[in-house]
């Protein structure tokens, strides 16, 4: 495979690319709250929530190979923790984030113990049960003193309704506002109907935290042991990886992180109920799965790209409620639908994508980007020998046909 250019990892060209990519991401993140309307910001928050959930699922499924169709329950743990603490006990929503993390972490660890004894489809079923049970439990009559039962938690708590929520006592009742030379980089937070921008920044913060945690784990000894478990459990154990402890911890971290976007959803929605927040039903769990797979399982940026694409596509096609709204070329195909055909369109896209890009969008990038620019990894080892040149001789001397 020929490539147009070859650059060294950590070299000037590599850094230039990294910086350029970072600038683009920053620009996008700043563009949404400052230059678009409340509707777009709301959609962006949805995307960010999905990103967070899919990234935490990715840690468990993409890297460690433990399937979970129950992550909606962990997101629900977050949403309900924030909802209950704010509306019933008057907590500041800030403090509910760590509490939600800890509670969901504990639930994840508990689930991991049966999960460490079962694999594959059976694990999928057990976690699916979790997703199905969660909405039942929170709408249970006998728990309505806590969860509000079927009608959900009381919406529009004063603090939440007025301000998004209060940032400390001093600024109670008014939004924080930042301005640099007349430009407000966070979006206009003063207008009461622009709470969206404030929630947006909370969602961004949550996604950044989840990303940093995932990155730290994945690029470490722990991350290698996770992938080792995914690839070959027996071998991983022989190398000294404690299977039960590692799975328990990954389950816990994954569940705990998944609760954080749940908290964001609770703040954004104002009320918490399985009807109000679809992500805490089994539908949500399946969406996280789809988002992760579309973006690319087992990669850091996969769920981020997957969520952006998912929300973008469903948002556009979701608007095709009437014939007039559908672009002319596509009208004959979708005009017959009574409801917006977004789910159907995405399903078809998913099937096509699984054929052309089984490793998701990031997989496509990894496969084809070396044809344009190949990044040579930093040589490993203290001798610093040339990495590629002798490859041919080695494969010749040690190969006698390609076994398996």
């Amino acid at each position, binding site marked *: 495979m020929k490539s147009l250019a070859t650059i060294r990892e950590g070299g000037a060209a590599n850094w230039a690319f990294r910086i350029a990519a970072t600038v683009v991401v920053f620009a996008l993140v700043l563009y949404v709250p400052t230059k678009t309307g409340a509707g777009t910001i709301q959609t962006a928050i949805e995307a960010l929530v999905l990103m967070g959930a899919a990234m935490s699922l990715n840690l468990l499924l993409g890297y460690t190979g433990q399937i979970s169709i129950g992550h909606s329950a962990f997101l629900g743990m977050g949403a309900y923790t924030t909802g209950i603490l704010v509306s019933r006990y008057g907590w500041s929503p800030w403090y509910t984030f760590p509490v939600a993390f800890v509670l969901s972490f504990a639930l994840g660890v508990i689930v991991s113990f049966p999960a460490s004894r079962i694999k594959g489809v059976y694990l999928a079923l057990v976690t699916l049960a979790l997703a199905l049970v969660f909405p039942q439990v929170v709408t249970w009559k006998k728990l309505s003193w806590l969860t509000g039962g079927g009608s959900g938690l009381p919406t529009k708590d004063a603090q939440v309704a007025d301000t998004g929520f209060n940032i400390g006592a001093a600024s109670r009742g008014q939004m924080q506002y930042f301005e640099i030379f007349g430009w407000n980089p966070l979006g206009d937070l003063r207008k009461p109907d622009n709470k969206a921008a404030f929630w947006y920044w909370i969602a961004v913060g949550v996604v950044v935290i989840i990303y940093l*945690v995932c990155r*730290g*784990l994945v*690029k*470490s*000894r*722990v*991350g*290698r*042991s996770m*992938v*080792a478990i*995914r*690839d*070959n459990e*027996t*071998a*991983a*154990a*022989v*190398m*000294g*990886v*404690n*299977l039960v402890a590692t799975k328990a*911890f990954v389950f816990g*971290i994954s569940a705990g992180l998944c609760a954080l976007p749940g908290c964001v959803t609770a703040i954004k929605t104002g009320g918490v109920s399985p009807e109000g927040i679809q992500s805490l039903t089994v539908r949500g769990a399946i969406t996280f799965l789809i988002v992760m797979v579309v973006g690319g399982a*087992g990669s850091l940026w996969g769920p981020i790209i997957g969520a952006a694409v998912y929300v973008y596509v469903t948002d556009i096609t979701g608007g095709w409620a009437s014939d007039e709204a559908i672009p002319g070329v596509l009208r004959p195909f979708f005009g017959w639908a009574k409801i917006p055909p977004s789910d159907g369109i995405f399903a078809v896209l998913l099937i096509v994508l699984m054929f052309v890009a089984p490793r998701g969008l990031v997989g496509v990038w990894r496969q084809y980007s070396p044809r344009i620019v190949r990044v040579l*990894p930093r*040589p*490993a*080892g*203290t*001798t610093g*020998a040339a*990495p*590629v*040149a*002798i*490859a041919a001789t*080695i*494969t010749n001397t*040690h*190969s*006698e*046909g*390609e*076994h*398996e």
Partner: protein
Amino acid sequence: MSANGYGVDTQPRGEDEVVVNLLDVDDVTVRFGGIVALDGLSFSIEEGHICGLIGPNGAGKTTMFNVVSRIYQPTLGSVRFRGQELLRTPAHGIARLGIARTFQNLALFPTMSLLDNVMVGAHSQGKVGFPRAIFRVGAAKENRETRDFAGDLLQQLGLGPLAFRPAMGLPFGTLKRLEIARALAAKPTFLLMDEPASGLTHGEVDELGDTIQQIRDQFGLTVLLVEHHMSMVMSISDRVVAMEFGRKIADGTPAEVQQNEAVITAYLGTS
């Protein structure tokens, strides 16, 4: 180490030095339901030796391996490593004791690069756990050190140029070498090799015999070798244990075992 092929102990060893057994397998029995895979097997391995474990298919050699590497729990018996009961150590604990193994049918991590495979091999040497990885306390430093260590090991085994290729799809012989490199990454004192020569060509088998002796000398290893390839076992082993139907039928120097009636019968049948 001379490879004279007759099992004369050529380890340089002082007259009065006490010979310590590295591994004592004592009366180990493994039953799977009604099948007796190992039936009261006992043998021991001296430090620094290469010990060959031979026997026809189904003799229980791999079962023995899986007992020592704690994948199977024996029904009866005890396995002591440096005099310490091994059966109380969990499967993930043996690497830290200095026991590493290779697998008969390859148990690599196919999606990982060769370098990452070897880095996982060094797992028991590392210290960064979940909290330190999340908060990045010393994780980068450990990564660099492990990476260099693994890179050097790959170079030594002639796999350096392939370091960044995924293990999936590489030739069998190369992957067998990678298994050895990965096992060595745990800095073991005791290496178990399960049929390292299977699936290799004649040329590769000779090379492998040399490699095993080299790494034994260089890393100060004791090696337990399960192998069907008789000429290799007999030429590099200091001691050979022969098994049949889960029992030991002979134990001694390669020359002794080769002369043993029971072994000849087991391999050739009675006339």
